[in-house]
């Protein structure tokens, strides 16, 4: 019961950023360029959910709290969902739904190439996220899902690459990712 409740509230929390963004867009509280703010915040939440899902394993080991693992998949899927929304908004408002321009951007703009690669790598993880797939793939599943670290790294590179000069914020996420990676190695 408690478990069910915590799961439901976790879902609600994961939807809150999106609900807030839609609410704020309608009420014109996203500033002078709401499309841009929404684009950046969707990307931000995708990265945060990804880093949270990667933090589950070290956290449950440190705090001896094995039940946390049940939130790992959920956080990862929400990361994928926010990534998709992020790209959909870019495609709609920045590229006017022009496929050829999307292809062009992916080829010519390295930060978009990297971001798109992160999204593409996310797809097999989403598809194989079910318990049945996990059982079927066995050991291979674990290896495949280590791609999440690469996706995290690519997302941070994408973030650094598109920002004009302020590296302070994206580097904080890089530190977070490194801490998660290192703690994984040291607490076996």
């Amino acid at each position: 019961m408690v478990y069910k409740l915590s799961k439901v509230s976790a879902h609600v929390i994961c939807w809150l950023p999106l609900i807030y963004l839609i609410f704020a867009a309608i009420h014109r509280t996203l500033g002078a360029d709401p499309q841009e703010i929404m684009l950046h915040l969707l990307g931000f939440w995708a990265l945060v959910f990804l880093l949270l899902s990667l933090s589950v394993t070290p956290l449950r080991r440190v705090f001896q709290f094995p039940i946390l693992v049940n939130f790992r998949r959920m956080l990862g899927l929400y990361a994928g969902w926010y990534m998709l929304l992020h790209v959909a908004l870019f495609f709609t408002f920045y590229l006017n739904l022009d496929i050829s321009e999307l292809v062009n951007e992916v080829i010519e703009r390295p930060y978009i190439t990297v971001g798109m690669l992160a999204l593409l790598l996310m797809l097999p993880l989403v598809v194989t996220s079910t318990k049945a797939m996990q059982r079927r793939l066995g050991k291979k599943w674990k290896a495949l899902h280590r791609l999440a670290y690469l996706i995290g790294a690519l997302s941070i590179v994408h973030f650094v690459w598109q920002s004009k000069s302020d590296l302070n914020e994206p580097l904080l996420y890089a530190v977070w990712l490194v801490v998660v990676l290192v703690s994984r190695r040291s607490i076996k």
Partner: protein
Amino acid sequence: MKNRKFRSLYSSIKEQQITPEEAFWNRRAFLKKLGYLSAGLPLLGNNGLLNAQTKGNIFTTTEPLSSEYVITHHNNFYEFSTNKSRPAELATEFKPGNDWKVKVTGNVEKPGEYTLEDILSWVDIEERIYRLRCVEGWSMVVPWQGFQLSDLINRVKPSSNAKYIEFKTLQSRSTFPGQKRGALGFHVLPWPYKEGLRMDEAMNPLTFIATGVYGKNLPGQNGAPLRLVVPWKYGFKSIKSVVSIRFLEQRPTNTWHKSAPREYGFFANVNPAVAHPRWSQANERRITDESFFGVKRIPTQLFNGYQDQVAPMYVGMDLVREF
């Protein structure tokens, strides 16, 4: 829709409805120019503001104005913050007045430290409606008030070996929190912010110093009290809160060029054919108001649409190499 409403409101309320508290230096000079102070019949004044909108006038445009809200709440003013909405919040205490000082140095006959009051006494305030194109890919249409930079330059008389002009923004960590180091110890940019123009660019009739916007004193976040406006160049050339003007024989460096030489040049002329290394400059996102659909993607024009006035200055220059 909202914008159009605002525009007609803006041209009909005129100055008499703006409260005296809001008005100090800019208003006085502006009213003097419009003849309101002497005529005392502002209701008849269908001049001044509207004069700028005469057909064929290069100093205006018929495109819809960006709303006052977006112009004053979407500011790349890294001295306050790299976040574009923060300068409006952080600049509430930044209200430079008549004692603001500008140092004029270098190859010039009348060097010195001039106050804002001195400078405003030399010039007439007029309105210019200019397109503003940011190097990041967004743009606005802004009704500035101010004066032609050439008026100031002629006053201080640069000598014949003054080939360039360099501007600096105020450096003050107490005024500008963004000039402190970031969380991980990085400076966002090397301070103070510097910009430069070639002398012919500085003397071009389009080159303007803004003291106001939408008929009010220039807000802190827009670069009060004196902000350069060079409408055919990317916005980062239009340096804010100027405290120093130096006349030089050699080309000065500019902050963004120094910070990322491959990405930002000295000239920074708006050019849809020359992409930024990381993104295309072929289109721009024109921001008219703060609604979710208040942004529209449109093609970018060479020299931001001011080619007739400025292209002759760059004849024979390779615009791809000298970006």
